[in-house]
């Protein structure tokens, strides 16, 4: 013990209520008491109101037959499926559009953000116009614009535009052949896995060599080569083949193949383009936050342009970029709920919309939906915080 014990006798004499410790305890007890009273009141109020409304409640409806159709699902769905399956369809459809949207928005956002700082007048001005236009128009309007503009621009089913490889584009979406790999194809996946392992080993080795000898090795190009050559060799050696099931025009629509409905395309477009305008500003802020002296220092070390960005500027910019970027990812995920307005069957449309209405279990459906968004948000936060911790300044 290194603390200096002055003994109780030395403690200043204060009245009971002025003692900060006692005061602290009193305040905390009061706040906790109020919080509990508030929760009790809400539960009581909800119970009384539900009883007064003569409504049936409970989660048993999840195991009842849904009885409606969902246009776009990642796994088999029919009207005989259960409500919990509808819940799952909603979740996976939301995840799909959010995941792909985040990737697109990040790529587009970084490009525009860097373009805004370009020394080329036209490029930077175009980026400015993009950012200022897109982020100032409500997302819902943009979604309607994309959806109905996309629909209007597309030819009708019978006049579909034929793309290479038996693909078609029309008002009902984009149709591409569905790959049907045979059993031998499993070896090719093993080849891919091996290639990835080899790439990790190669990177490790190249870094070691750089540190010991100072000589560089073209890791990226050789990685790409590995990824193509190794599975390719396995493919030929194993004699695996992939059949393609092309979409075929029937009486009304194309059947078979993989369909990308216009609702998905429009939502993806709208979300990516909208969120990218915010990400672009975040990226610009991040890059501008890095002191110019860092660039000069890197130059004086003799680093090449690419290395300067990759090793000095971007890692420092990322520290500024990541926290607001996380918020944008969360926003994109939550904004995907607007897909309901243009008929994309995501969670809000399928579960908080159709399922809620068909069952009348408003509180249950909304609660579950909110829970899902909460979990999505927390997961995104956890992942981004982990990444943030990795890139943050290590203080020694």
């Amino acid at each position, binding site marked *: 013990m290194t603390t200096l014990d002055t003994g109780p006798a030395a403690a200043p004499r204060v009245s009971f209520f002025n003692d900060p410790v006692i005061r602290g305890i009193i305040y905390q007890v009061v706040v906790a008491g109020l919080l509990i009273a508030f929760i009790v009141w809400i539960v009581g*109020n*909800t119970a009384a109101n539900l009883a007064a*409304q003569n409504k049936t409640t409970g*989660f048993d409806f999840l195991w009842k037959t849904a009885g409606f*159709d969902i246009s776009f699902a990642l796994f088999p769905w029919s009207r005989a499926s259960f409500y919990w399956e509808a819940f799952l369809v909603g979740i996976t459809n939301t995840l799909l559009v959010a995941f792909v949207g985040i990737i697109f928005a990040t790529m587009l956002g970084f490009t525009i953000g860097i373009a805004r700082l370009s020394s080329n007048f036209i490029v930077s001005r175009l980026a400015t116009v993009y950012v200022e236009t897109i982020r100032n128009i409500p997302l819902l309007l943009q979604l309607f614009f994309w959806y109905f503009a996309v629909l*209007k621009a597309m030819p009708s089913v019978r006049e579909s535009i034929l793309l290479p490889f038996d693909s078609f584009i029309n008002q*009902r979406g984009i149709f591409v052949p569905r790959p049907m790999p045979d059993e031998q194809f499993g070896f090719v996946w093993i080849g891919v896995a091996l290639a990835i392992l080899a790439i990790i080993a190669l990177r490790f080795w190249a870094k070691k060599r750089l540190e010991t000898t100072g000589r560089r090795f073209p890791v990226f190009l050789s990685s790409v080569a590995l990824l193509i050559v190794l599975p390719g060799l396995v493919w030929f050696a194993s004699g695996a083949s992939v059949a393609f099931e092309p979409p075929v025009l029937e009486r009304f629509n194309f059947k078979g193949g993989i369909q990308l409905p216009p609702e998905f395309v429009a939502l993806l477009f709208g979300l990516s383009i909208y969120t990218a305008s915010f990400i672009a500003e975040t990226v610009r802020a991040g890059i501008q936050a890095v002191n110019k002296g860092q660039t000069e220092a890197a130059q004086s070390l003799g680093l090449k342009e690419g290395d300067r960005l990759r090793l000095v500027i971007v890692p420092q910019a990322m520290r500024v970029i990541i926290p607001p970027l996380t918020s944008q990812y969360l926003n994109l995920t939550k904004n995907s709920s607007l897909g309901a307005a243009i008929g994309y069957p995501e969670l809000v449309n399928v579960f908080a919309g159709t399922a*809620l*209405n068909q069952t009348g279990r408003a*509180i249950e459906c909304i609660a579950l939906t909110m829970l899902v968004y909460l979990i999505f948000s927390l997961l995104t936060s956890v992942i981004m915080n982990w990444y943030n911790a990795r890139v943050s300044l290590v203080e020694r």
Partner: protein
Amino acid sequence: MQKTLATIALAASLGLVATTAQAAILDDVKAKGYLQCGVTGGVAGFSAPDSNNVWTGLEVDFCRAMAAAIFNDADAVRYTSLTSQERFTALSAGEIDVLSRTTTWTMSRDTQLGISFVGTMYYDGQGFMVRKADGIASALDLSGAAICIESGTTTELNAADYFAANGMEFNTVVFVDQDEVVKAYEDGRCDVYTTDSSALAAERSKFANPADHIILPEIISKEPLGPVVRAGDTTWFNIARWTYFALLEAEELGVSQANVDEMLGSDNPAVKRLLGVEGDFGTPLGLTKDWAYQIVKLVGNYAESFERNVGPSTPIGLERGLNALWKDGGIQYAAPIR
């Protein structure tokens, strides 16, 4: 009980509080001085704002009739336009006093949602509309077609049932708002637009070229459309129900907006009872003695409302059909006022 508690706990933990005004809706309505009525966002002939932004339609007339009975003023109504998804929640939460919005009377709704159906303002059935150019003659040819539907409706369930029952392939695109449904159909996203056949006719009347679209002969469901009130307030329920009956009874007795004053002197006891000349059928409802007189005087009888809003002389052009009075071969039938 345990399930209920789990639900409540979950709801409460997420901060959801249902609010409701229980019982004595009539007192609340009288106190605020107007009737809050839930209607559609606009189905021509049923409830839609006209060029002067005044709500008109068969279902709007029901709201007006209730207001006439309560306030002697058919204009003492404020309208809340609701989507199919919002309607029951709005009613349960007390945001509206009565829902008069192309709502199908079904058992699960009547028994599980804490609401009560008043009667059937319009006997309808679900139909399909297609483009004439597609050359479809029957709903049984629709296998594989893309179908535009409004979400959270009985339409959505009926269509799934019909396609499953006939072994046909199904392909729906579901929107929250009816306007988007119609627009998506017009733009060619779907081959078929399905909803109650009356609403199909109403929407078609608004198309640029109504003649390019046909409504297929198959009617695949029963859709009794009627007003709805919150369950539990008998007085309020009775006012709504007897407003509906009064509209029918007036037609049956030949009492119309034009002749109602003259009919006050009628010798027919049934007419006397309806108009409050003999007996008092208003006070037990919590209304005045001449409640039905006010309805007919200010709104008209059922036939007048039908003719004015959806009848053959309107762009909607619906025949009375099932909605004729029982004595004219239809199934509209009012319990007697006595």
